[in-house]
């Protein structure tokens, strides 16, 4: 399946990545060749195969429902590109 330019634009919008026309062209070519490679899987009949959901046989461990951390607001905000003392700051979203 080839990935045309409109499809590239659509998935780039879903993935929130802006692209210029030149990039759209080169990505259309690259993604098409990758998808062509992937389509080898169509040779296989998997109608009766159960899809793998977990690679480990162990069941998940349970733990007590208790708070183990917290009060780390400053640490969480530390790497933010823009913040005031308590909040992440983003461009205005409400007019």
């Amino acid at each position, binding site marked *: 399946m080839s990935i045309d330019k409109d499809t*590239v634009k659509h998935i780039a919008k879903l993935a929130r990545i802006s692209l210029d026309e030149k990039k759209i062209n080169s990505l259309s070519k690259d993604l098409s*060749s*990758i998808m062509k*490679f992937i389509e080898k899987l169509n040779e296989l009949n998997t109608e009766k195969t159960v899809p793998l959901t977990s690679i480990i046989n*162990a069941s998940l461990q349970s733990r007590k429902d208790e708070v183990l951390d917290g009060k780390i607001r400053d640490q969480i905000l530390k790497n933010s590109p823009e913040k005031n003392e308590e909040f992440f700051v983003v*461009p*205005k979203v409400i007019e």
Partner: protein
Amino acid sequence: MANISDFTLTKLVAGIKKKDFTSQEVTESFISSSEKSKKLNTYITKCFDEAISTAKNFDKKKNYKGLLAGVPIAVKDLFCTKNVKTTAGSKILHNFTPTYESTVTNNLWSQGSFLLGKLNCDEFAMGSSNETSFFGNVTNPFGDKLVPGGSSGGSASALAANLTPATIGTDTGGSIRQPASFTGTVGLKPTYGRCSRWGIVAFASSLDQAGPMTKNVEDCALLLQAMSGYDPKDSTSVDIKVDNYSSKLTDKAKGLKIGIPKEYRVENMPDAIDKLWKKGIDYLKDAGAIIKNISLPHTKYALPAYYIVAPAEASSNLARYDGVKYGHRSKGNNLFEMYENTRSEGFGDEVKRRILIGTYVLSSGYYDAYYLKAQKVRQLIKNDFDKAFNDIDAILTPSTPSAAFKMGDKKDDPVSMYLNDIFTVPINLAGLPAISVPAGYDKNDLPLGLQLIGKAFDEQTILNLSLAIEKRADFKRKFKVWWS
């Protein structure tokens, strides 16, 4: 006395304990060789001053208890290190300084080691040549135009060039084993769940696993033991006892059954690799193993399935880089424009390709055709291994279909780059442990590795078999130090 930085990890730990040299002398030796290695471009962040002061402190306190007591180690820049910049080789994290430490690095520090620096890697561990890093290409010590492999290319190159006594990498589709093979070093991907993934920058969560990269098999056993273990903070880490790999290490393989999968004999495989594989079979026979021909019929579908599963998980994992909570942020007139510009400027080409493929295969109307199909194929690949392991103890294959290639050779053709992982990817899909051990050279004097694949949580057997190969192959890393 030989240069300290030539010594193996095991020898350094023993030497410090016996007071042949101090931790400070060891640290200074690796710093000195690292300072001269600019042309290899292995380091993203150097922690040399802190390392020296930790070493001095160690020499005062003389606490020799840990498995790695007194030895500094540089690690792949994918492990979060507290108060030390962690970039994942990406512009989008170029200014990120974690306020916490990954479990795996923390395990090393608990055993008496300390951080020497953060090593270059492909951006978000996506690549097989270390040509996708925002911080530039890494060069292979075996040649100034050669790639070191990827994504743990900086780790492999630094290790081979004696800039660090050992290192740790991560392996999602071959990112430890392929660069180990390209640089004549040992690299092991543990069973999925053996090491905690907590605090490692995520690429594809159902495939990612951290592992040791070392100068020889003995060191590999030691470092694996130091880094492994159950971690309540990673729900997919498994609570199974970690063996004392070093004390159980033996090169005897009497009675062990080794499978040779016919599907790994691919078209256009260089003669040298085919010959090396045969030699590997002879080495293991000599060690007492029994060789059996086996079939893993779905091998050829592993790589296409991987290029659905890994990008799908990556597109989801990398959604967090939005310019709000941490990392790079670009300007935009509104929130969505800010997101789109941040991600466009912050991610490199290969990462964009994978995010877009992942977004596509998960998008409405395509999920069943691609992602669900790939998960079914993944089950078939796992079934192949499960069936084979009913009769055998381990599998022997080449590590890679070629030796290290030239920079730029495959950069413009993503699929040809992906094909380099043809022998390593199936193991990640099945969650099994595998090791690459250097075993010989091709006609251009470039190192080649053999891969041993084990049963889940049986790292010991593949370590032992690797030791049997290592002893017989008597591999020596040979290159001129052209970079200093």
